[in-house]
């Protein structure tokens, strides 16, 4: 018998609300399948299961907020078909609700369908939780049918007492996200003795290489400087592994994989830093594709649990917002954060000559319990060197 529990989707998460089941009792699932949607302060997350097997029973009903670690469902790991499920399958689990325009509550899927079908959500009657508009409601409005959506599944008898029931629409809640960021950053500054390093990198080679490379690519496959910086960071980590991993229970656990948390600002404010996995093993083209996908899903509120829970280092590229350099606050339990500022034209002395070059300021905030400034300096030097031969990345 296996147990599928409410995951911890970051150091700042204590509890989450199950908003929708993506699996039913009897379904065969394999490691990595999305089996549930969970609402956190940072939006709705697709939660993957980590053990292959057969779903046995769904313990927690949609709409219930439970602490991290609560058993949400049980599984049989032998994969053999089991008896008929006792729990009624929540086939009509309510769709997640996202704060939309004032006065309109509709799930992201409903809003997307509404856009596709040209349905105006205002004035539409919702049959989801708290009268929110579901995909089915939009379907009905689009096709002109009037039958009501099926009622949500009853809560199974064995459901644990909820910590709190969902009173507000799910989705990204600005105040909740602010609190989550505050908790994580306060913990970081309380526990992690940061040190900060900075270096200026001559970006003329990488920018010229990128421009020439992009000129040969169709517009949909163009590579952003950010993707090259991510790949260079992952490669530099290979030389200085002390910046990559977690500080847990008083000791450092290095990570062999570079899961780079990418700080992505949300259009309505707030910040999420989900991971691109195994950047060290991907080409720059693959990193670009992964970055584009990740930014789109972050802003649409469609992240996966593994992306939320396991970044091994964070990279922030505030240069896009015009700042020259950024000294970040490490996201615990990580041990380092790499920052890139904007590309600026600067006077640059090289070989006894003064010229004008595009320059980018790279910074490292690192945990002094794990590494010293010397090793941090080696990391930034490696980053600089790698960016001088971008074609080898």
């Amino acid at each position, binding site marked *: 018998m296996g147990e599928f529990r409410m995951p911890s989707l970051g150091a700042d998460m204590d509890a989450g609300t199950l908003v929708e089941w993506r699996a039913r009792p009897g379904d065969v699932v394999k490691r990595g399948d999305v089996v549930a949607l969970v609402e956190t302060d940072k939006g709705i997350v697709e939660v993957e299961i980590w053990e292959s097997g057969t779903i046995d029973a769904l313990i927690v009903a949609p709409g219930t907020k439970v602490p991290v670690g609560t058993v949400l469902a049980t599984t049989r790991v032998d994969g053999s078909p089991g008896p008929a499920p006792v729990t009624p399958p929540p086939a009509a689990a309510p769709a997640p609700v996202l704060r939309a325009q004032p006065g309109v509550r509709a799930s992201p899927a409903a809003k997307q369908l509404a856009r596709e079908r040209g349905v105006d959500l205002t004035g539409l009657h919702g049959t989801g939780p708290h009268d929110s508009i579901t995909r089915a409601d939009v379907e009905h409005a689009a096709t002109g049918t009037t039958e009501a959506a099926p009622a949500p599944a009853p809560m199974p008898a064995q459901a644990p007492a909820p910590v709190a029931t969902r009173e507000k629409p799910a989705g990204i809640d600005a105040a909740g996200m602010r609190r989550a960021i505050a908790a994580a950053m306060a913990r970081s500054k309380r526990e992690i003795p940061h040190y900060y390093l900075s270096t200026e990198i001559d970006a003329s080679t990488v920018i010229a290489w990128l*421009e020439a490379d992009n*000129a040969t690519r169709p517009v949909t496959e*163009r590579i*952003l400087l*950010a993707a090259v910086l991510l790949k260079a960071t992952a490669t530099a980590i290979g030389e200085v592994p002390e910046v990559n991993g977690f500080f847990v229970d008083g000791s450092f656990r290095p990570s062999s994989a570079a899961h780079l948390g990418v700080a992505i600002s949300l*259009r309505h404010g707030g910040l999420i830093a989900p991971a691109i996995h195994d950047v060290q093993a991907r080409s720059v083209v693959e990193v670009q594709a992964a*970055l584009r996908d990740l930014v*789109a899903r972050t802003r649409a509120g469609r992240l996966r649990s593994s992306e939320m829970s396991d970044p091994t280092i964070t990279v922030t590229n505030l240069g896009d*917002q015009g700042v020259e350099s950024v000294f970040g606050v490490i996201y615990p339990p990580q041990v380092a954060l790499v920052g890139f500022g904007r590309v600026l034209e600067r006077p640059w002395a090289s070989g006894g000559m003064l010229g004008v070059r595009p320059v980018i300021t790279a910074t490292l905030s690192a945990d002094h319990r794990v590494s010293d400034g010397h090793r941090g300096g080696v990391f930034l030097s490696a980053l600089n060197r790698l960016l001088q031969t971008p074609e080898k990345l």
Partner: protein
Amino acid sequence: MSPTSTGAVRQAVLDALASVAPEADLGSLDPRAVLRDELDLDSMDFLNFVIALHKALGIEVPERDYGKLTTLEACVDYLTAARKQ
């Protein structure tokens, strides 16, 4: 050039902007406002904007011309001219 084609280009630009900045009130967008600042577009947004323009109009804006797509007005001028070529 016919006003219809300029209008179509303008609409395509507005649609592309709406796809990358869905929360923006584009009805009140000053045609001379700098888009990156006005709509808080980062480099990924801008790439998606250029991709959306390509899908709508079939025009591939080369990277070296990104600097010409500063405002709504500039976008319409640039893309209208590019269409005629």
